C-alpha cells in the first residue's frame, strides 16, 4: 500500500512540472498581447513598451519561465496585470469555493448515478433499464451552461426559489451558502452523472452475472442485499477510476458555471485570466486545477487499493 502511494507521489511532481511547461508555452503562444489587453483602446506604443518591460515580458521565454517557476515554488505566483495585486492570496480565498462546488456536484452526480445505474443493471434489457439509459443519453448531451441558464430562468427568475447567483461562505451562513450552491451543483452534477451512470450500470451488469452473486442468490439473500452488499463493492472499482477523471472534469467545468452563477472561485479566475491575457492569473489558476485533478487521481488510486487489495500488487496504472 505504501509502495503504491510512494510511486504515485513520485509521478506527481514530474507530471506537474511537465504540465507547467505546457501551460506556460500555451499561455504565451495564444494570440493577443497582454500589454494591449491591459492597456486597452488608447494604448500608445510607449505605454505598451513600458508595460512589457515592467512585467518582464521583453525577456526570452525560458528566462521568464524559470523566473516564474522559482517564485511559484516558493508560493509566489506574481501580481495580476489587471489589478496589480498578488495572485497567491486570491488563489487561497477562491479555492474553497471551487472545491465546495466540485464536491457538491460530485455528490449530486453520484446520488443520481449509483442508484439509477444499479436499478438499470438489475432490470437489464427491461423497461427501467431502457428509460434510465435514455435519460443518461439526454443528460450527457445537455451542455451544462445551457442547463444552468434554464435553472436560473425557472427557479430564480420565474419561481424566485433561489437567488440567481452570488456567494456566501459556509461559515457565514450554511443555509444561504447551500441555497446559492444548489443550482450550480445541479447544473454540473446532472450533466456529469450521465457518464458515471453508464459505468455504474455496465459494472453492475458484469458483477451481477458473476458466480459469487449466483451463490449469494442461491443462499437466499434478498435482491437489495445482493445488489447493495455483495455487488456494489466490486462494481465500484471501475466506477471510481472514471469518477476521478470526472472529478477533474468537474474542476474544469466550473470555469463557465462559476461565471454564470457569480461564484468567486478558481474557474472564474481562469476565465478572466484568458479574457484579459493576465498571464500570472491564468497560469496560477490553471495550475491549481491541474493540482486538484492530480490529487483526485492519487486519492482514487489509494481508495481503489483499499477496496480491492489486488490493485496494490498490480503495476500502478498510468
Amino acid at each position, binding site marked *: 500500500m505504501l509502495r503504491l502511494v510512494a510511486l504515485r507521489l513520485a509521478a506527481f511532481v514530474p507530471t506537474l512540472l511537465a504540465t507547467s511547461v505546457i501551460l506556460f508555452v500555451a499561455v504565451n503562444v495564444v*494570440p*493577443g*498581447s*497582454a500589454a*494591449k*489587453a*491591459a*492597456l*486597452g*483602446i*488608447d*494604448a*500608445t506604443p510607449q*505605454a*505598451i513598451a*513600458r508595460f512589457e518591460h515592467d512585467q518582464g515580458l521583453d525577456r526570452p521565454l525560458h528566462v521568464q519561465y524559470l523566473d516564474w517557476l522559482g517564485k511559484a515554488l516558493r508560493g509566489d505566483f506574481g501580481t*495580476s496585470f*489587471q*489589478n*496589480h*495585486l498578488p495572485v497567491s492570496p*486570491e488563489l487561497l*480565498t477562491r479555492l474553497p469555493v471551487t472545491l465546495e462546488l466540485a464536491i457538491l456536484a460530485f455528490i449530486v452526480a453520484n446520488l443520481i448515478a449509483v442508484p439509477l445505474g444499479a436499478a438499470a443493471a438489475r432490470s437489464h434489457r427491461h423497461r427501467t433499464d431502457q428509460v434510465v439509459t435514455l435519460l443518461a443519453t439526454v443528460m450527457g448531451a445537455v451542455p451544462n451552461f445551457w442547463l444552468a441558464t434554464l435553472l*436560473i430562468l425557472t427557479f*430564480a*427568475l420565474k419561481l*424566485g426559489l433561489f*437567488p*440567481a*447567483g*452570488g*456567494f456566501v461562505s459556509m461559515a457565514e451562513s450554511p443555509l444561504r451558502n447551500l441555497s446559492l450552491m444548489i443550482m450550480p451543483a445541479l447544473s454540473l452534477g446532472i450533466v456529469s452523472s450521465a457518464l458515471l451512470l453508464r459505468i455504474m450500470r455496465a459494472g453492475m451488469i458484469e458483477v451481477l452475472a458473476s458466480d459469487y452473486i449466483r451463490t449469494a442468490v442461491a443462499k437466499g439473500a434478498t435482491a437489495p442485499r445482493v445488489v447493495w452488499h455483495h455487488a456494489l463493492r466490486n462494481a465500484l472499482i471501475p466506477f471510481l477510476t472514471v469518477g476521478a477523471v470526472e472529478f477533474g472534469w468537474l474542476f474544469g467545468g466550473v470555469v463557465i458555471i462559476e*461565471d*454564470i*452563477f*457569480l461564484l*468567486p472561485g478558481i474557474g*472564474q*479566475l481562469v*476565465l*478572466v485570466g484568458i*479574457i*484579459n*491575457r493576465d498571464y500570472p492569473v491564468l497560469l496560477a489558476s490553471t495550475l491549481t486545477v491541474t493540482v486538484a485533478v492530480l490529487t483526485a487521481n492519487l486519492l482514487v488510486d489509494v481508495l481503489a487499493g483499499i477496496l480491492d487489495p489486488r490493485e496494490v500488487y498490480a503495476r500502478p496504472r498510468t
Partner: protein
Amino acid sequence: MRQSAGVAQQREIGRLVDAFRHGGMSRRAFLRRCGALGVSLAAAQHLVGAYTGAPAAAAGGPRRGGILKAAFSADPAGFDPVRGPSGMSHVVIEQVYSTLMALDPDAKPYPELAQSYKMTDGGLTYTFNLRQGVKFHHGDELTAEDVKFSFDRLRAPKSGYSYGAQVETIKSVDAVDRYTVRFRLSKVTGPFLIYMAFPGSSIVPKKLVDSGHDLNAKPIGTGPFKFVSYEPRSAIKFQRNPEYFEKGKPYFDAMEYRIISDITALTNALLSGVVNFSNEIPPKDFAKVKASAGLTAVTLEGSRYNWLLLNNTKKPFDNPKVRQAVSFALDRQALVDGAFFGLATPILGGVVPQWNWGYADISFVPPKGDLAKAKALLAEAGYPSGITGVDIGMTLPSSFPNIMAMGPIVQANLAKAGIQAKLGTMEIPRYWDEIWSTSNFGITMMYWLSPLADPDDFVTNNYHCGMAINVQKYCSKEMDALLEQAKSAPTVEARKALYRKMQDLSMQDMPIVPLVNGWLLIGHTSKLQNYRPMRTGFLKTLKDAWLEA
C-alpha cells in the same frame, strides 16, 4: 412611422406638463408618466424644475440607511488615482476621494473641495479657496499641501499617469496658505475645470502617502464613502463616511459594487434582487428591466458614441468622397432600431451630443441614409459601378455585443451602395493586437464613453493626428489647428464657434463615420430616491440619493 410616434410623444409630454403645472398631477405621478413615455428621469426632472422654479426633490425626506448593491461588468485596475487607468477604477475612486471641482448631472463643473475659485491672467492662473475642516478617512485635515502634492504626483516625469494630457499644461501648483492653492498654466486650457473634476485629479493625503501607504491596496480620501475591501474580480465594499463634508450625506449605510463580467448574468442579478442598481443594462434586456415590478428603468443620453473607422491610408478609403459615400450609405435609424432596440440616437453630423454646449446642429446625412447620394459620390470618386476587386476586411471585436449587432446591418447597407465588405470577428485581446493597434483593417467599428464632458474629449482623440485611438490614421493640419485653437480659446463662445468649424470639417473629410450614440441604460430598485444619473456615466450623485424603507 417613427417620426409620427415621436410627434405623438411630444404632444403627450406637453399634455403631462400642462396637467402638472395646473396642479392636476403630483410630481411623482408626473415623473412616472414621463418615464413611461421614454423620457429620461433627468430630462423629466428638468421639466419639473423648469415649471416649479426649484430643483426636483423626491417626495418624502431623505432617509438614512440601507445598502446600495450595484453591478458592474469590469474589474477595476487599481484605486490609486495616479495608477487607475480604467473607467471601473474611476467609479470606485470617485466615491472614496474628492476633487477640487465636481460635475453635476449635466456635466457642468461646480466647486467641490474648493469653496470658490478665481480665474485670472486671461485663464493662465486659477486660485482655489478650499473648504476648511475637510477630513481624510484616516483623520487628517485636507490642506493646500495635499492638493499640491496630488498634482505634483500626477505630473512627475515617470508617474505613469494614463491621463497625462490633462495635466501637461500645469506649470506649477503652489500652496499659498493652508486653504489656498494656485495653479499656473503654460497655456490657456479650456477644459481645465473639467479636468479638475476628473477622478484622476482626486486629492490624496500627502503625509500618509509619504509614509509609504499604498493607496492601490487601501485607498484613502475625503469622499462620501470609505473603502472597506476589494475581493478581486468579485466585489468592492464601502461604508458610509460619517464625517463627509456635506453634512448628513451620504444616506446609504454602505455600498457594494459587484463585478459580474457576463452581461446576461448582470441583468439576471438585477432582476432577481441580488443587486439593486446597474447602469450597464444591455439594450436587449432593458424592456425586461422596465417591465419588472419593483425596478425603475431610466435612460439618459450620455456620450457613448459608436463610430465606423475607415482606413484613411488604404484604398479605397484614402479618398474622402468614398468615406462620405459610406456615411450616406448607412441607415442609422436601422442601427438604432435593430442593434439598440431604439435606445440610441442616430448621429447625423459631428460627434458632440446635443446636450453638450459644443453641439453643432449639423444634419449632414438623413437618419435613414441616402443611397442615391452615396452612389453619386462613389461615381465621383471613380467607382461608377461600385467598388469591386478590392478586398475590404471588416473585422469586429466579438466582445462588444452592440458592435456585433451593428456589423451585419452596416455590411448590408454598404453592399446596397456597391461596397462589398468581408465581415469577420475576433475576441478582444487578439483584436487589440492584430486589428486595432496595427491598423490592419479596411473598416472596423468602435465605441467609447467619454469620461469628460468637454467637447475636446469627444473629438481630439479621434481627429487629431497621432492620437492613440486615431488608428484610421487621419492627419490634417487644418483639423489639428482647429482642435488646438478650440481647446485653448479664452471663452466658451469662441470655443463653441471653433468646434462648429471642426465638426463641419469632420463631415467634409469624414475620417471616421459617426454612427449612433447609445444611451446610458440604468435599472435600479424603485426604492432608490433622488438619484440623478450623470451624462458622463459616473456615479458621484449617489451621495445625494437614498433608499426608502
